[in-house]
């Protein structure tokens, strides 16, 4: 009876019901689309940030993050490789050696960050191998001929007035404090998409790096390649313990890129404030509509109470009416939001004119919203819950109703 009466009641004023439901639908749709766009842009930011160099996780000495010195290195033993393989099946580890050095061409010298890498594995981690603009990436095989290869960022190569095939000289400090000097051949110039990196980054074969910088086969980091794109992945505690016992630590992208995490948190906070305002607006407008509908029926409620209907039952009927309007809006908003979001997830949204801003962060101006359980359900569920709670209020007001004055009201 409650359900049937409430359903019929909401269609007494079809225009009002439809307008209310459409308002809820639009809010719901927005609360599906906007978080999906946010998640998509975070994913793009993180992908761009970790995809160029860091990878999703790295094994490092525990002190390396705070004090990334040449000496904070470790020897990657076979046992470590086996343990990681055992704990995270289908994973691989890629060696990395990091240093700062002076790079010189015949004309000029600049400071740079040089990374010793394993080229074949690097292709699975970094976007740099795909972004070679001139020449080629480092050879997969390390031979006596290929071992002296180096690639440079495009801005650095331009500043040094170098072209592919030229010789460059490296001058730095080895792990043992000795002078590290080498002469290498420029075989490729990359453009990462971030000018700052292109101005100071270079890669060479790990073997040669180890030799030049007296690393004695030690590394500064082992990048974990597990073939999974998920950024929220958690790693086995047993692996973390194993590493901890050896003064090593597995750092995920959040630890490697705290600035990105802070930027995302800040963006989430401001977006949350906007969502809360949006939800409050829709809750109050629906509450107003419901109160108006109750006010209009004061006489009818008085009559029903005279017949023996208790205020509780009337309150329930009014609440179910609000629930119906809410369900109409939330369900249609969920469907429309999901369809629109999915469409843009496939096609992407290009922010025309914002290319320069996006480029600064290594982002493509086309963002792909990401539709997942969080973006799809959280907004509509929160709206539904808020409206369900607010919808009970007009029902409570019925308890104050006196039968005789109510029946006399127009």
């Amino acid at each position: 009876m409650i359900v049937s009466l409430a359903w019929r009641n909401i269609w007494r004023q079809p225009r009002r019901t439809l307008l209310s439901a459409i308002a809820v639908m639009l809010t719901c749709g927005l609360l599906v689309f906007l978080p999906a766009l946010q998640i998509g842009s975070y994913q793009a930011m993180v992908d761009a940030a970790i995809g160029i160099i860091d990878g999703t996780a790295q094994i490092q000495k525990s002190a390396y993050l705070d004090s990334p010195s040449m000496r904070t290195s470790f020897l990657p033993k076979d046992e470590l490789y086996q343990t990681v393989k055992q704990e995270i099946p289908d994973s691989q580890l890629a060696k990395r050696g990091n240093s700062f050095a002076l790079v010189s061409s015949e004309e000029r010298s600049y400071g740079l960050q040089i990374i010793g890498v394993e080229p074949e594995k690097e292709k699975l981690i970094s976007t740099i191998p795909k972004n070679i603009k001139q020449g080629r990436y480092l050879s997969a095989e390390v031979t006596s001929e290929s071992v002296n290869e180096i690639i440079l960022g495009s801005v650095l190569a331009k500043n040094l007035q170098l072209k592919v095939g030229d010789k460059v000289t490296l001058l730095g400090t080895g792990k043992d404090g000795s002078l590290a000097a080498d002469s290498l051949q420029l075989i490729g110039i990359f453009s990462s998409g971030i000018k700052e990196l292109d101005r100071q980054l270079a890669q060479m074969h790990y073997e040669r790096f180890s030799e030049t910088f007296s690393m004695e086969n030690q590394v500064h980091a082992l990048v974990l390649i597990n073939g999974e794109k998920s950024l929220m992945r958690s790693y086995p505690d047993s692996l973390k313990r194993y590493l901890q016992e050896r003064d090593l630590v597995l750092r995920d992208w959040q630890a490697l890129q705290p600035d990105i995490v802070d930027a995302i948190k800040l963006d989430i906070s401001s977006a949350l404030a906007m969502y809360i305002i949006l939800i409050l607006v829709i809750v109050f407008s629906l509450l107003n509509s419901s109160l108006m509908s109750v006010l209009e029926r004061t006489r009818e409620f008085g009559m029903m109470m005279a017949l023996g209907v208790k205020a509780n039952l009337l309150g329930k009927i009014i609440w179910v009416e609000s629930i119906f309007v809410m369900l109409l809006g939330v369900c249609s908003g969920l469907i429309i939001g999901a369809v629109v979001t999915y469409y843009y997830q496939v096609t992407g949204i290009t922010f025309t004119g914002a290319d320069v801003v996006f480029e600064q962060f290594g982002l493509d101006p086309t963002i792909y919203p990401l539709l997942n359980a969080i973006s799809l359900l959280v907004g509509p569920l929160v709206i539904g819950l808020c409206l369900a709670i607010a919808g009970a209020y007009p029902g409570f007001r019925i308890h104050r109703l006196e039968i005789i004055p109510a029946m006399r009201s127009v």
Partner: protein
Amino acid sequence: MDKPIVICKDVWKIYQQGEVKVEALRGVDLDIFQGEFVSLAGASGSGKTTLLNMIGGLDSVSSGYVEVDGDDLSGMNKNGLADLRLSKIGFVFQAYNLIPVLTAYENVEFIMQLQGVPAERRRELSHEILGRVGIADMGERKPAELSGGQQQRVAVARALVSNPSIILADEPTANLDSKTSESLLELMAELNQESQTTFIVATHDPQVIEFTKRKILISDGKVAQDC
């Protein structure tokens, strides 16, 4: 007719209107018995509707005692009064007061549904009662699709269907023409005879007053005449 079904003893109702106290009822003493067909007659503002509201538990007395079918109304809270109205009292209002979104059948069934009568039985009784009030073929119509007289018949059917001890009717013919009024009164009298349900009708319509067996004249908040 040994025990009264309605007992009013020294019933007072005083309203506060701003700084003025309005005495709507001033010590009404009244007994009404099972199966009576009573009119509470009087001019506008005489207190007849107020008295009807007191008997129906729609309003509380300022002082005095009201008993309906053995229940002392002054000792009851809102829910208790709602239960009493649901189980023992049927109402017929001047403005019909049907639920606009429900059909005639559903309006009649509504009270039974509140009383927990099973669906099949409700359907059966609603068909039967609408047949008795002469509008069986209009059961699927909503109030807006019925004439005033037909709506009032539905209201009578709704009041009667749960077999209450008394039916209170407040100016039931006020919005009806004389022919429809007469037909409605005949129907009420017939139902009163058949089911021995007590009818108390507040009215100032001479046609209604003439029709009832017992006529109680209310004047200035008191029983002026009872015959």
